[in-house]
């Protein structure tokens, strides 16, 4: 792609041409070089996009809930982008991207743009391109940028920390899962959502979560924000108003405490780090053959390898 072609594409994307936006995102996915050229053009300054991370227990209704949030934000006249992350099969390298199914009712809305992103082997979560996409959506003027992650692993936690507001979604009767996740994502939420509250066991789980929050067993107070617990039924559209309200409260809170821009800087730093990792590992794999195992000092050999990678990348 020539610079001129790229400029035209970016221009068209900024004029709101959706096919151009779609294509722009593809360039970001396909080549780090193109991605950085695109980001060069669009980055800088502070976007107005509120990044909402949605994580939680698999199958707890994250996608369904996001679909309901989209409906509400649409009513408010906002523009919404969704980055939906699904795992890539480690065996075939293929992926089936299924989050979208639950949001398809919004597919044709000009204010909504949904993009599925496979993890492509990045353990547990969002790859470089995923974060870069957030940046692009931000610059394109989307008001809410919602990221659905797969809800497992350390990377997931890292990514979520880049969102302005983190929702952790659970569902009734998932006690075991909640226990298992306690150490991980159960700590990072700004808002805890007990979805599927239409189910009979909901009250018990609610009481449990409420107690856990109260005692600090889950969630942790960040500055002065006390994590909230909201009961929803995405299926029946209940509790969504309360959820939207809590999200707005959190947004106001972080703006007031200056965390808002801090998060953006952290996000951008993380993006660069992810790109560095990506470039490094890819090159490393390329020169795998050249690793000298005759050399007994593996530390030295490793350092040599790093230098080799660096010199070749440079």
């Amino acid at each position, binding site marked *: 792609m020539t610079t001129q072609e790229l400029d035209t594409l970016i221009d068209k994307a900024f004029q709101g041409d959706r096919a151009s936006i779609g294509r722009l995102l593809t360039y970001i996915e396909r080549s780090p070089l193109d991605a950085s050229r695109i980001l060069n053009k669009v980055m800088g300054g502070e976007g107005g996009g509120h990044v909402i991370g949605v994580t939680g227990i698999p199958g707890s209704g994250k996608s*369904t809930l996001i679909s309901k949030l989209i409906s509400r934000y649409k009513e408010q006249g906002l523009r919404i982008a969704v980055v939906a992350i699904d795992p890539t099969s480690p065996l075939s390298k293929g992926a089936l991207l*299924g989050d979208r*199914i*639950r949001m398809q009712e919004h597919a044709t809305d000009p204010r909504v743009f949904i993009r599925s992103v496979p993890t492509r082997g990045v353990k547990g979560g969002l790859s470089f391109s995923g974060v870069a996409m957030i940046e692009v959506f931000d610059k394109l003027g989307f008001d809410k940028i919602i990221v659905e992650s797969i809800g497992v692993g350390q990377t997931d936690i890292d990514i979520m920390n880049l969102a302005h507001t983190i929702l952790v979604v659970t569902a009734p009767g998932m006690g075991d899962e909640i226990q298992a996740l306690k150490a991980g994502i159960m700590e990072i939420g700004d808002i805890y959502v007990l979805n599927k509250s239409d189910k009979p066991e909901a009250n018990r789980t609610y009481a449990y979560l409420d107690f856990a929050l109260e005692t600090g067993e889950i969630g942790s107070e960040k500055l002065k924000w006390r994590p909230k617990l909201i009961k929803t*039924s995405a*299926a*029946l559209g209940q509790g969504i108003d309360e959820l939207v309200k809590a999200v707005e409260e959190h947004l106001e809170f972080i703006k007031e405490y200056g965390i808002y821009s801090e998060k953006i800087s952290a996000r951008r730093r993380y993006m660069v780090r992810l790109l560095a990792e990506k470039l490094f590992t890819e090159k490393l794999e390329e020169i795998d053959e050249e690793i000298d195992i005759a050399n007994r000092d593996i530390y030295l050999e490793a350092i040599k390898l790093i230098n080799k990678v660096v010199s070749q990348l440079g």
Partner: protein
Amino acid sequence: MARLFNEETLKIIEERLKKWEKETLPKSLSKYPLRQDSFRTHSNIEVKGVYTPLDIRNMDYFEKLGLPGEYPFTRGIHATMYRGRIWTMRMFSGYGSAEDTNKRLKFLIEHGETGLSLAFDFPTLVGIDADDPMASGEVGVCGVSVSSIEDMEIIFDGINMGEITTNMTINPPAPVLLAMYVATAEKQGVPYDRIGGTTQNDPLKEFIAQKSYVFPPEPAVKLAMDVVEWSVRNLPKWNPISISGYHIREAGSTAVQELAFTIANGIEYVRHLINRGMDVDEFAPRLSFFFDSHINFFEEIAKFRAARRMWAKIMKEWFNAKKERSLWLRFHTQTAGVSLTAQQPYNNIIRTTIEALAAVLGGTQSLHTNALDEPFRVPSEFAAKLALRTQQIIAFETGVADTVDPLAGSYYVEWLTDKIEEEAWKYIDRIEMMGGMIEAVKRGYPQREITDASFRFQKEVEEGRRYIVGVNIFVEEEDEEIRNVPLLDINQKEIEMRQRERLRRLRERRDKARWERSLKNLKRAAEKGENVMPYILQAVKSYATLGEIMSTLKEVYGIWVEPPIY
């Protein structure tokens, strides 16, 4: 106690079998090695070369088989079976507009048919009106379009609804279509006790296979059971539900899965009705079933026999049913549409014949045989006639209908019947452990099992481990004449426009206040969890449309989007 074999006999057979395995068999094997490493049924059950009394050594005759018309009904629900009456040859087909359907029904009645069958188009099947944007291009394509009571009135114009029975293949919108049917009959002056027919009304299999679901599982089941309860109490001649394995099988399940999931659905319905406070013997005799008959001949026969035995046991032992009729598994069968191929289509006649034979040997109450051109178009009249003739030849020429359950006592068939039952119980146990079929469906359990099975089957075919004539063996470079016969021409665009226009006028003309009130009442009843049938009847009479009634219910019940399963 009536053990079939005594220990002494078994011992002798066992010795002889060992000797046979050592002496006779190897000789034969050296000359004719086996064609395959293993032989397996569609359900992946491994089949041995020879079956003997040893394979059913503990069989107790009365516990496992009994006599025809007696518990556990393995051999049939009636003592005489087809010696008294041949199964019902029920064939159905779809046709465009309400007017066309009316003409067609009248034609059928003139030719002596009294059991009518209505196939609906897709918009009707998923409960949206003909003028909904989603319906565009589909109105009147696969059946008749019904959006309001006006359509129903046109369909039955000049037909005495007290003298016919009507089978309606409809699921989530079943309460609405039944209400329209009843209201139309009422207008004709037909009393409730003369309104007869069937609604399929089986929501759980929609989640598992057919996928014309609308509401989430719990309210879907609740609504369907409203139909059952209301029919049992108001329409003594109506069969309110047909618990269907057919679609499960067509979606690629194995025979065992079809059997297990269908029975598990039945269990869920029975539980629901009992929990409502109904007496099991009040509704159980009105439950009926619908199965597929596929090409793996003996497995299908065994499946039907096992089904009867399992259901009788469940009704008697789990639910304490007392009436004999409550224990009967009555079923309709259709031959397997998925077993037919577009390649060398005449072969489909033979497939259908074998499948029909299995259904008859399995003791079906009624049968639909597919037309040979089904894989690629709406059946031609000629093909439909051949399909019917297939049944007639089986009934009147072959003699298979002259004795009851002729395969009973075959070591293989009895072993296979036991085996299929055993495997089906395993599934049912697993579903019970999850808390029943509603829970299982929400977890995507049966969906996933079926997807895996159909994927496995497809792979076996592609890798040449399973043969389909004309597809992966004896393939011809053909382009047969028959496939070029033009389609049954329905003027889709015109039907759609006419339906839209009719709806527009109806919406303009109707009494707005009464219409609005009826929907409000319906909504309130749904919120309170009452039986909504009387309210739907009222709404239908107030000219609320199918789509409006379904939308009202969606507001209360929500809608279902299935968990992604591949």
